Structure formats: C-alpha cells, structure tokens
C-alpha cells in the first residue's frame, strides 16, 4: 500500500513544511451522562522535532494524540478545520488509507507494554508481523529485520529475546520492544502516549534516549504526551500545555521558566523540588476562566 513515495530523510530546515498540521481540532464524545467535549479547538504544527504535550488527567492530551490517527473511540467524533500529514488531508482520508498510514507512516506507542503487547505471541513474532503487515517481504527477511531492530533498541541478546513472551520481559524491555515494533516500518511521525510513566526513572532516561536517537537519525517527528512537565521540558524541543481540552500555552522547552500563563506557572510551582525545602507547596488555583479562553498565549509570540 506504500504507493506514495516517501521523502529522503534529511535534517529539518526551517523553511520546510511541517509534517503534521492541525487547525482547530475538536473531539466530542456522546456518553449516557451527556456530551463530553474532550478537545476544544487545538491547533499545532509538528516538524522534525520533539514536541511535548503536557497536561493533567482530563486535559485532552491523549485524545489529541489519538485523533491524529483517527483512533478515537466509537462514540466520539473528530472535527477539524484542517488536519494534514505530509500533504495528505487526514480528515478526508478513507479508513483504508488511514490503515495504511497507521503503524507505517505514523506510529503510536502507549503507556504500558503489558497491555499493548499480545500476550500469546512471542515478541519477535509481533515485531515481524508489524513489518509484514505493511510490506511484502518474506518471513525470513522479516525476522532478520526484527532482530536488527532489537539491536537498534539496544536489547542485548536479541536472538534470545526474540523468542520470549511479553510476560517474560521487564517493563523497560517491553517498552523497547514496543518501540522496535513501531519503528521497524520507518515512520515519519511517532506519537508516544505516556511511554515512560510505568517505568523506573533510570529506565525512563534510557527509553527517551532511544527515542531521541530515532528522531535525530531518521528525521522523525515525535509527539510526546505526558503528565510530567519536568521530564517533557528537559527532553522536548517545544511544549504544549493543555488544560480542559485547550492549549493554554506553547513554549520553547528551554524557556519554561519564562512561562506566562498562570496555569503553566502554577503547575511548575506545585512540583516538589530536590532542594530540600520542606515548606508547603503552593497549591494550583484553577481559574474557571481558563476553560473558556479563546486564543492561547504563546502562539502569538512564536
């Protein structure tokens, strides 16, 4: 299904068109308790960079990621003025086209590998399957590529791990396997939804380093969705802060301390610091006005 020629990977230049462009995205769900407006007019561009989307639970960040791949649940509707990927209109694309894009040109990794890996298949078989679903290659070639991929994600003894089942691998390794599975098709965009939340802090760093390499070496665009503002700001290039389905602020990750929006500032302030102070943490005061804001701060200044 890869009849659309993919561009060669070269370092991003400032005048390049964004890989993904989203304008005024809305996601609504109809629930027995009434309609839920999960994403309210989100707009952003993604280039060959690491973009972080940060928010608390209920902020709409995961739904935004899913909407990009049109993976919203059955009772949800996606509306957008514009949602393009590499020149293609994702809103108008047929389901068949979307299926050919998912996993091969836009990939997604999720939080807990325990739940995303098929428990009754060996991990190697799953990686190979991912490969063969999008390309017509032989089983033998798929296995070779899978083994190479396992090495790329820095798993020692790939032959041994290839034949393991998901419950036999640790959390960190499971996540690396997920990354291998999602990268084997050389996607242009990777959406990572809380990929490291279930991992220990040193393993988190290793997995992020892996993603970092992938972005650099392959010229991939990465969307990192997380609730961990600290982590996202230390890893990503740009950060979108979401609250109540809207983007409150768009920032350069290095300039987080210059955040302007009270929500971002409040969120930063209520994080406990490693400086040994035991004073009470300032509590975030939620301003109801944030739920009805129009334009987000930061977009103007970019």
């Amino acid at each position, binding site marked *: 299904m890869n009849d659309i020629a993919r561009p060669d990977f070269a370092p991003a230049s400032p005048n390049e068109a964004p890989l993904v462009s989203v304008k005024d995205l809305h996601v609504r769900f109809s629930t027995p308790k009434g309609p839920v407006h999960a994403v309210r007019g989100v707009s952003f561009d993604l280039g060959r960079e690491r973009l972080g989307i940060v928010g*608390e*639970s209920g902020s709409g960040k995961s739904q935004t990621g899913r909407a990009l791949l049109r993976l919203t649940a059955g009772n949800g509707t996606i509306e957008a003025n514009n949602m393009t990927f590499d020149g293609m209109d994702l809103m108008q694309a047929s389901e068949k086209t979307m299926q050919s894009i998912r996993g091969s040109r836009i990939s997604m990794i999720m939080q807990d590998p325990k739940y995303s890996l098929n428990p009754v298949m060996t991990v190697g078989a799953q990686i190979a399957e991912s490969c063969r679903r999008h390309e017509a290659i032989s089983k033998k070639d798929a296995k070779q590529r899978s083994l190479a991929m396992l090495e790329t994600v820095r798993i020692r003894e790939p032959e041994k791990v290839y034949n393991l089942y998901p419950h036999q691998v640790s*959390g960190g390794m499971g996540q690396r396997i997920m990354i291998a599975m999602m990268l084997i098709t050389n996607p242009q965009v990777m959406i990572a939804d809380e990929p490291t939340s279930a991992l*220990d*802090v*040193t*393993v*988190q*760093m*290793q997995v*992020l*380093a892996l993603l*970092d390499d992938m972005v650099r070496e392959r010229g991939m665009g990465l969307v990192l969705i997380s*609730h961990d*503002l*600290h*982590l996202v*700001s*230390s*890893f990503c290039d740009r950060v979108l802060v979401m609250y109540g389905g809207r983007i409150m602020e768009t920032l350069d990750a290095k300039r987080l301390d210059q955040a302007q929006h009270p929500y971002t500032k*409040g*969120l930063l302030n*209520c*994080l*406990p*610091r*490693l*400086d*040994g*102070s*035991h004073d*009470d*943490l*300032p*509590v*975030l005061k*939620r301003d109801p006005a944030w739920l009805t804001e129009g334009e987000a701060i930061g977009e103007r200044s970019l």
Partner: protein
Amino acid sequence: MMIDIKDLCITFGSGHNQIHAVKNASLSVPEGESYGLVGESGSGKSTILRAMVGINAQITGSIIVDGQALESKRTVASRKHMQMVFQDPYGSLHPRKTVNDTLSEPLVIHKLGDRDDRIIRILNEVGLGPEFRFRYPHQLSGGQRQRVAIARALILEPRVILLDEPTSALDVSVQAEILNLLSALRKTHKLTYIMVSHDLAVVGHLCSKIAVMNRGEIIEEMTEEQMRSGKVKHDYTRQLWTASHGYSREALENFKEFA
C-alpha cells in the same frame, strides 16, 4: 526511637525458587520524624512496609515500633498504633462502601464510641466537608479518595503511618495538596511517617532522612543536605539523583547497570 528495624530479611517462596526480597535492612526513625525509602521497582521498599504491617510472614530480624517488638501474629489491639496509606486511590477503598462505612469500620472493630463525632471531625481534618460523608468511592475524585484513605488511617489515632507511594497515581496539582496535608497532619498529631516512593523529589520534600534501596538492600542513607547538593557516596544513589533532575544526554552516558 519510634521505629527500629534491625537486620530485616524478607523472603518469598522456599527452596530452589526462594526470592530474597529484602536483605539485612536496618533503619531507625525518631518520634515525629518522616523517613523516606526510595528505590526503583523490585528494590524491596514496599515489601518492608508490608512486613511492618504483618502482611508477609517470612521475616527474620527485628522490627520494634514504639518499644514493642512486632511478632508475625498481631493482636487486634496492636493494630491501632500503625496504619497505612496505599498508592492507588481507586483500589484502596471498598467500592460498595460509602465514606461513612469505610471510616466507621475501624471504630467498630476497636470498639471506639462517638462514631459520628469522630467521623465528622476526621473528615474536616483531611479537608473534606461532612457533605462527602455518604458518597461512594466512584463519586469521588482521585484526590478526594486519597483524603478518605488518609482519614481512615488517621481515625484510630495511630502513632505511625506508613505511606506507600501515596501520591504517585495523582495529578501533580492534587499531589501538592496531599503532600501539604500529610505534612500538616504530621505536625499536628506528632505522627511518625515512613514514606516509600520512586520519586526522589516527593520524598525529599516530605522527609528528613532518606534511605536508598536497590535489589533488596539499603545502599545509603541521605541527609537533607545531601539531597540538596547531590554529594552522595554510592554510585547508584548519584545516578538516581541525577535522573531525578530530568532528561540529560550527557548524564546518561555515565549510567551503569545496577539491576
């Protein structure tokens, strides 16, 4: 010392498959202080807490709380002095019991009177008004559930509260509120805490002394000054400290495998 643990060893299983979850752990906590246990998953930190409340049976070594050595068989009365708050606010409250049911149960078990008064008072203390008294857990937010869990731990007026990752499952803004609450309660009631977490910043904020665990052993005890400066002795501790400051490629180059 309120809590004195010496040479604690905890094992699971037997014979060939025996797992040594905790190896010769020793720590002591003075009354009214807050002690942190930090480590990655599988380090044994939660196992120590569970052993303290008598959940895992296979232990050697001594655990002395408030002058009393803890045996593996606990009497009901001895339960009054030490309570626990769990990580998952969604799992630690019985889904079919209202807040009132959950809070009155310990009072019934320990035959304490004035139940209505005590319940209303404790709800106020944890920042929930009496209007929450008859709600079910699914009608409460994560932060509210955790407050109920804290109320439940507090209602028996214990001397020691064990905190097993009490804010890991909460949003950052809610975490701040709960940490402030825990801090205030400790000062008001002169409670002694042992807090377990994987998050060094959270533990550092609440605790005055922190033990770092790896693979069942306590590697190092950090003081507040060491938390601030990062001048720690052990490589593993330094690695943990560095990783807690956020992603850093240069730092990662120096990381070693300790697992």
